């Protein structure tokens, strides 16, 4: 690429993102969501310092206690501090949300891009495969994979990665297919750019917007999936705490010990709403047409 063209492309590229950022900053609801997300990430990172007690430390003299001065959110059935368990739960939620999305992108984007770029028989086979995967009720499949692999953080990544890539692959394929015929791709090809370089340097950067949007919605979905799995007991392995697992165990005793499930339920609700507001904001900012 000659220097002038490169400079022009660079400014146009940044101005789209800068434009989007400006729109995002002006969206108050999205910013509120963003602030909560940053807070949650900080809690997740500094969980070890923030926990008043180790999350596994039992106190058999004070079981299922409602909130008090020494235990701000009360204790659970083993006398463990609920607040500490909630704080550590934030780490699990954030870890799953971000980690599983990385895996989803790592699987989905290449499959979609290759399918759209190569076309022909590869495309037919890959799309058929994607369609069959799409026909599965998603959560059903995740539960199936999890109960077969067994509970555990790593297995949650695998289960979400294996099932979650389909949506993003479809989107990437559609984008690549649409961009493949554009003039700038022809121009690049005319200059002698071929194969992987054409796909990576020219097509994919232009397909980034919908991928970013789908990732921002994928994070809360992964967090929800982990919570749902842990709720029915095939997610995180005890004694590691997870909000979903706390709600699942606590709801059985909701009549006698309401605090066991209400606090983690509030945490899940706030997290999901913040990500939704932020995601809506990102979508509106990057793609004003979709509003």
């Amino acid at each position: 690429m000659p220097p002038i063209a490169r400079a022009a492309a660079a400014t146009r590229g940044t101005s789209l993102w800068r434009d989007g950022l400006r729109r995002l900053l002006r969206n108050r609801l999205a910013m509120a969501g963003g602030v909560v997300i940053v807070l949650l990430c900080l809690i997740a990172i500094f969980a070890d310092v923030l926990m008043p007690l180790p999350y596994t430390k039992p106190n058999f003299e004070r079981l299922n206690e409602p909130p008090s001065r020494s235990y701000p959110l009360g204790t659970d059935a083993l006398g463990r501090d609920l607040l500490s368990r909630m704080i550590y739960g934030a780490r699990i939620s954030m870890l799953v949300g971000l980690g599983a999305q990385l895996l989803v992108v790592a699987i989905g984007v290449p499959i979609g891009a290759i399918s759209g770029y190569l076309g022909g028989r590869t495309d037919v086979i890959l799309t058929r495969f994607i369609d069959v995967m799409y026909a599965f009720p998603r959560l059903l499949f995740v539960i199936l994979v999890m109960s077969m692999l067994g509970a555990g953080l790593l297995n949650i990544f695998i289960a979400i990665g294996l099932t979650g890539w389909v949506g993003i692959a479809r989107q990437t394929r559609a984008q690549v297919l649409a961009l493949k015929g554009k003039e700038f791709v022809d121009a690049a090809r005319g200059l002698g750019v071929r194969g992987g370089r054409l796909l990576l340097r020219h097509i994919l950067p232009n397909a980034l917007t919908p991928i970013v949007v789908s990732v921002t919605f994928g994070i809360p979905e992964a967090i929800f999936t982990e919570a749902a799995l842990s709720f029915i007991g095939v997610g995180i392995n005890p004694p590691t705490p997870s909000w979903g697992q706390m709600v699942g165990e606590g709801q059985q005793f909701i009549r006698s010990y309401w605090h066991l499930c209400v606090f983690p339920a509030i945490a899940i609700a706030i997290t999901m709403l913040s990500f939704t507001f932020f995601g809506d904001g990102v979508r509106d900012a990057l793609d004003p047409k979709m509003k």
Partner: protein
Amino acid sequence: MFQYIVSRLLWLVPTLLAMALVTFLVMHATPGSPLDPVAEGANPLSPEAQKNLAAHYGLDKPLWQQFVIFVSKAARGDFGFSFVYKTRTVAEILRETFPVSLFLGSMALVLAVAGGLSLGILAAIHQNRGWDYVSVSLATVGVAVPNFVLAVFLIILFSFAIPLFPTGGWDSPRDWVLPTVTLALAPMGIIARFTRASMLEVIRADYTLTARAKGLAEAPVIFKHALKNALIPVVTLLGPLFAAVGTGSFFVETIFRVPGMGRFFVLSMTGRDYPMIMAVVLTYGVFLAVMNLVVDLTYGALDPRIRY
């Protein structure tokens, strides 16, 4: 039309076969077996006893043979005995639990459609005013917050704070209220969002302007002219919503102790109840596919521009 229905029904066969195969492979490719003492409901058994049981259930045959036997039996509606509830056949259990789930799901869907449409229409008519905010926030909460979390809040609110409904069970119509509402909130939110967007678009269309210019009152303009057109995109949503209600129901069934298929599904997974897992997955699959077909046909009936 007839040809279209037949071809769609025929497509169901390979789709279900693929689903069965994927489920079967996932089940058998992962470590653990129904005879494994760690599985829930299983007993620590001597190797000889395990061998006998494997022979009894046909688990000693090569995998491809097991799959072929399963498919040929399943085609005749025979899923065999459950591994966990050893004295009962899978078909028997499904006959008992599926209607309960279906009933709960249908009530929830009716509520979701009625509530979602009303909220969406209200929001569109009062765009950027009071009702719009109420409806949009309700929709957002319904969509974003998982239903087992909503269930906790609803129980606290309507069983403890205001003791109107019981916390669980499935005996009287009073027991139906909370599970139905919990299950309905997410699809209701989705329908409300879509109805609002599509109504806003239709209200600005030329033919709505024409209807108003003719001097029609507000009510017929909204209900006769606008709503009919706004409904078309909403109908396509129903297919995915059936799936959402179907999978959503195992959390709701667990929390509210509803004796439906969803609860059995989770139990059968952890207990490695192979015949039960296959049967439940395929039941969901058939149900969803048929519902999608019904939705597509309704779509065609509503929109004369669509021809099959």
